[in-house]
């Protein structure tokens, strides 16, 4: 199976992504979209640890992602795009990056957040981002690994 996965996960590249989704999708490339991490090569190396040689990880700032993703998505390659938050994903979708579905795989407890699932905690802004993504025609589902059932988040946020 190949495909494209857009995933929101505060942990970015980690076991569920590399083992769970990686062995399902066989990605050629992982694209992390983060202005902060794009400037931090040491942190990037930590995230790359444990990646198989067949998967290349790149860390793009937002404007590099807007420029680079369309061609990558058109290439037919299997790709995983990761952001730390829903806001970045919404900005990508608003910038005309074609996203059919966003997978929420890890947003954890924090101030003002309430628990929807063991790995999904939302505050009011997160809920609003889900509504905005859905309004753009993007399905937003929670699914930590491919073997668990996806949960449509629109129905959870009202």
């Amino acid at each position, binding site marked *: 199976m190949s495909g494209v996965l857009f995933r929101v996960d*505060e*942990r970015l*590249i*980690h*076991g569920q992504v*590399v*083992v769970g989704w990686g062995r399902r999708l066989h990605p050629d490339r992982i694209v992390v979209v983060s202005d902060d991490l794009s400037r931090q090569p040491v942190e990037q190396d*930590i*995230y*790359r*640890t*444990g*990646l198989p040689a067949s998967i290349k990880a790149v860390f793009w700032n937002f404007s590099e992602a807007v420029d680079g993703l369309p061609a990558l998505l058109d290439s037919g390659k299997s790709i995983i795009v990761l952001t730390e938050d829903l806001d970045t994903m919404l900005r990508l979708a608003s910038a005309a990056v074609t996203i059919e579905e966003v997978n929420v795989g*890890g947003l*954890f*407890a924090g101030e003002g957040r309430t628990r929807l699932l*063991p*790995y999904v905690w939302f505050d009011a802004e997160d809920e609003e981002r889900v509504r905005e993504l859905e309004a753009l025609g993007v399905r937003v589902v929670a699914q930590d690994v491919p073997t668990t059932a996806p949960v449509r988040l629109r129905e959870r946020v009202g």
Partner: protein
Amino acid sequence: MTGRCGVVVAHGRLGEGLLSALTRVAGVQDNLWAVSNDELDTESLMAEIESLLAERGAGREAILFSDLDGGSCCQACRRLLGRDSVRAVFYGVNLPLMIEFVFLQDLPFDQFSAALLTKSRGALGVHS
């Protein structure tokens, strides 16, 4: 009190289970603990490990044991290297590795580290 302590930082209930199994074969250890990343992001997981070491580590050199290299548990451990007396992060943790920790924990670090890796790797095989 020995000079080292250890924390197994792993997915799900692996750490807890591993220490339970270790107790069966090597007896109760008062310097080994487990932390799970269930429902925790990386920063919260780091805080949990730091808090455990502050409460129980008593300033001893701490060895962290993680499961998947590159996984979120291992990433949290690596970010703690050099902080709070964390001396090393072993990954790919298994029961043979933990048994060697129990019996070799007082060796000088280089010998300790090499022996743990050699013995735990040597314990992996197949009967067919």
